[in-house]
């Protein structure tokens, strides 16, 4: 395919390429840099991502709501199919490019201060740059094979960063878990890609999923999945969609593959903010956005139900967790559930809109959590305490110690709850309204989806309030347990404050819409759905936001009342629901009992088989050979050698006998001669 691009377009492409490759350059430079704690590595990575960010902004303004820019080169040929690789810039990829680099920039700045004390400072930035490269490349890849390779690289760099503190046993467990869970999804994606190739003979995303693309022309009838080129039994379409959904579920931590994300919080908090809250976990939603036309209505319904269930389940778990980062992790899973649900109900634009707004406020929340944990660690180190710096049961009253952090946390939390004037309101209420619209003409079972989503919103409000109150309000609980501790903590320098301010601005409505109450007017929303504009036809559009938010406000007040006014034991800490939530719905136990254990048992059986049967057989062989050779050796020694030795012995005894005559005594010789002659004569005589 030969495409002639205008000068402006090729310049844009060049910028996009630069934005993708700069972090790779930083990665290579950091690899070659001497010194484990070389501070220059932090600035190289940050500089690279800053330039990337600037280039992405230029690319974004050149591409947004303009024509798609697509350039490809022939990559390789298999049989008669030529595989092309290239860059695809449309609204979706330009948006993601911008989002990833804009989120990565504050995280890099923050990390230069956050990881300052770490012994492996350079390695951290090397891998962080590597992740940024993989993620940026993932969003601009125009081809499923290329997409798949960067998908793997993203998973791999996430693995490296989760296990960054590889001396901690828990971190090793967590990164293994994350990697294995992601592998399950990767296998699904690979299967789906191969089926798509078998059906359409191309990997190209534009040809497959573009306007009037091959997937759009396919129809399903008479149990066959008919593409423009050929048809396959319809079961393959189900498998392909299932595979893609598996990949999405693994990467975006959806039920049933969500359990790796809370454990992934063992990595540095800045990594959690960038990878496990804002960007990488969004890759699954991004993949859905890319291959959206592949899904049929029925499959989208299933997706909506699973997304809704995940959102609800994760929110209930977040209610009772005590680990600060774990709460945020479950909140992330819950919000990702919203995005998947939105994809399922056809709210394509709202889903991606929520992805963008969520990235900002969740990243901000994680960075705040990082500061809090860092300061708790300081208290722990200064006073030689044996506490868990991440546990919110030790915190409280930090509002006065960390006023700046507190304000930032409030902004992010309001956005997460989705109160008006924040970005979260615009995106989340869009999803809720469209969920009600979607369920309108469906049976009552499907009504549960929007209801569950609304319920989740209220749960979200509650756990966020619980988190904020326990961390920032009341008195420091540590002070009660340990009377004589010194507390010298502060908000930190500009490297902490600047990223937080940048992200906090992005949590507010003006960046997305001039009207803080009506999501349809957000430019981002309109950019992603240029044709299907929803009319404000029915009552949902005013009723739902109002009802949801008024009740949210009540819940916020309720939570505040419960936790600040110290009626702490208003909730039973023992009931079934509490245990279910506290133990994270027993997913880990379930998996370890029903999947890990059988696999381990199978492997021990196989290992036994290997050790005893295969190795036994192999060990038997030498024994048999040894036995045979012993027999042969015996035969050789006693029979073959025996004959030779007998001969030798005979010859020897003869010669010894003959030697006896040669004793040097002349008379003896004479006597012998005489005897022989006598004998001869006697013989001749007797004959």
């Amino acid at each position, binding site marked *: 395919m030969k495409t002639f691009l205008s000068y402006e377009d090729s310049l844009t492409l060049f910028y996009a390429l630069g934005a993708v490759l700069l972090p790779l350059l930083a990665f290579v430079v950091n690899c070659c840099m001497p010194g484990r704690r070389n501070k220059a590595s932090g600035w190289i990575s940050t500089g690279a991502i800053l330039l990337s960010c600037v280039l992405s902004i230029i690319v974004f303004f050149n591409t947004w709501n303009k024509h798609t820019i697509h350039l490809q080169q022939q990559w390789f040929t298999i049989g008669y199919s030529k595989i092309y690789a290239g860059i695809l810039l449309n609204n979706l990829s330009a948006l993601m490019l911008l989002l990833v680099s804009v989120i990565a920039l504050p995280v890099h700045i923050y990390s230069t201060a956050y990881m300052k004390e770490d012994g492996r400072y350079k390695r951290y930035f090397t891998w962080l740059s590597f992740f940024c490269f993989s993620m940026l490349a993932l969003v601009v890849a125009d081809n499923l094979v290329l997409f798949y390779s960067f998908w793997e690289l993203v998973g791999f760099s996430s693995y490296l960063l989760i296990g960054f503190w590889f001396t901690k046993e828990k971190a090793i467990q967590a990164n293994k878990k994350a990697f294995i869970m992601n592998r399950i999804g990767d296998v699904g994606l690979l299967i789906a890609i191969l089926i798509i190739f078998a059906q359409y003979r191309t990997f190209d995303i534009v040809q497959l999923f573009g306007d009037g693309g091959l997937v759009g022309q396919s129809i399903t009838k008479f149990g066959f999945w008919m593409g423009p080129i050929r048809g396959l039994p319809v079961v393959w379409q189900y498998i392909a969609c299932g595979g893609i959904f598996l990949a999405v579920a693994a990467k975006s931590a959806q039920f049933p593959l969500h359990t790796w994300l809370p454990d992934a919080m063992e990595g540095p908090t800045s990594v959690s903010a960038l990878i496990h809250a804002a960007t990488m976990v969004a890759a699954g939603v991004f993949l859905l956005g890319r291959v959206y036309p592949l899904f049929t209505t029925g499959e989208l319904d299933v997706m909506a139900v699973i997304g809704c269930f995940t959102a609800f389940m994760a929110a209930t778990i977040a209610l009772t967790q005590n680990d600060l980062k774990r709460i945020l992790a479950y909140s992330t899973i819950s919000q990702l559930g919203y995005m998947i649900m939105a994809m399922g109900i056809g709210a394509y634009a709202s889903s991606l809109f929520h992805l963008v707004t969520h990235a900002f406020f969740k990243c901000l929340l994680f960075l705040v959590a990082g500061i809090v944990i860092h300061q708790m660690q300081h208290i722990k180190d200064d006073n030689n305490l044996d506490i868990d710096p991440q546990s919110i049961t030790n915190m409280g009253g930090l509002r006065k110690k960390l006023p700046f952090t507190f304000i930032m946390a409030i902004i992010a939390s309001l956005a997460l709850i989705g109160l008006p004037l924040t970005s979260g309101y615009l995106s989340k209420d869009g999803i809720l309204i469209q969920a009600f619209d979607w369920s309108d003409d469906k049976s009552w079972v499907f009504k549960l989806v929007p209801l569950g989503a609304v319920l989740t919103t209220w749960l979200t409000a509650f756990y966020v309030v619980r988190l904020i109150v326990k961390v920032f309000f009341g008195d420091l609980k540590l002070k009660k347990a340990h009377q004589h501790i010194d507390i010298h903590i502060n908000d930190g320098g500009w490297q902490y404050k600047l990223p937080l301010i940048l992200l906090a601005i992005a949590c507010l409505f003006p960046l997305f819409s001039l009207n803080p109450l009506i999501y349809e007017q957000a430019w981002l929303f309109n950019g992603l759905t240029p044709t299907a504009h929803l009319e404000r036809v029915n009552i949902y559009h005013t009723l739902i936001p109002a009802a949801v938010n008024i009740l949210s406000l009540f819940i916020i007040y309720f939570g505040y009342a419960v936790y600040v006014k110290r009626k702490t034991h208003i909730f039973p800490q023992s009931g079934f629901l509490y245990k279910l939530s506290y133990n994270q719905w027993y997913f880990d136990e379930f998996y370890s009992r029903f999947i890990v254990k059988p696999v381990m048992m199978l492997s021990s059986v196989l290992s036994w088989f290997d050790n005893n049967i295969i190795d036994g057989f192999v060990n038997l062989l030498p024994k048999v050979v040894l036995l045979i050779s012993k027999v042969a050796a015996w035969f050789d020694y006693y029979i073959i050698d025996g004959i030779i030795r007998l001969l030798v012995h005979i010859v020897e005894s003869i010669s010894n006998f003959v030697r006896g005559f*040669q004793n040097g*005594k002349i008379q003896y010789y*004479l006597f012998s001669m*005489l005897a022989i002659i006598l004998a001869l004569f006697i013989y001749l005589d007797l004959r």
Partner: protein
Amino acid sequence: MITLTDFLVVSVALFCIGLYMIVSKHNAIQILIGIELMLNAAILNLVAFGKYDKLNNGGQVFALFAIVLAAATTAVALAIILNVYRRYKTIDPGEVNRLKD
């Protein structure tokens, strides 16, 4: 009347004595004497059988030659014995066994 048989009997006796001396004595001189005895037994035979050659007296002549030759060999043998004695300080042939393997 002395018959041929009597001569032969004496000759055999002489021969056997010489032979016995050769294999049993520990003195080279005695062995040499044994050899002389055997030689003389042979000469006696020559002389005894000489009666069948009355014309030329071949037996007697041949005996004379044999005696001369025997004297010569005895001289040589004595010289050897002398040399052996010089080297080994003994004339027992059993002691002189450097030739054994």
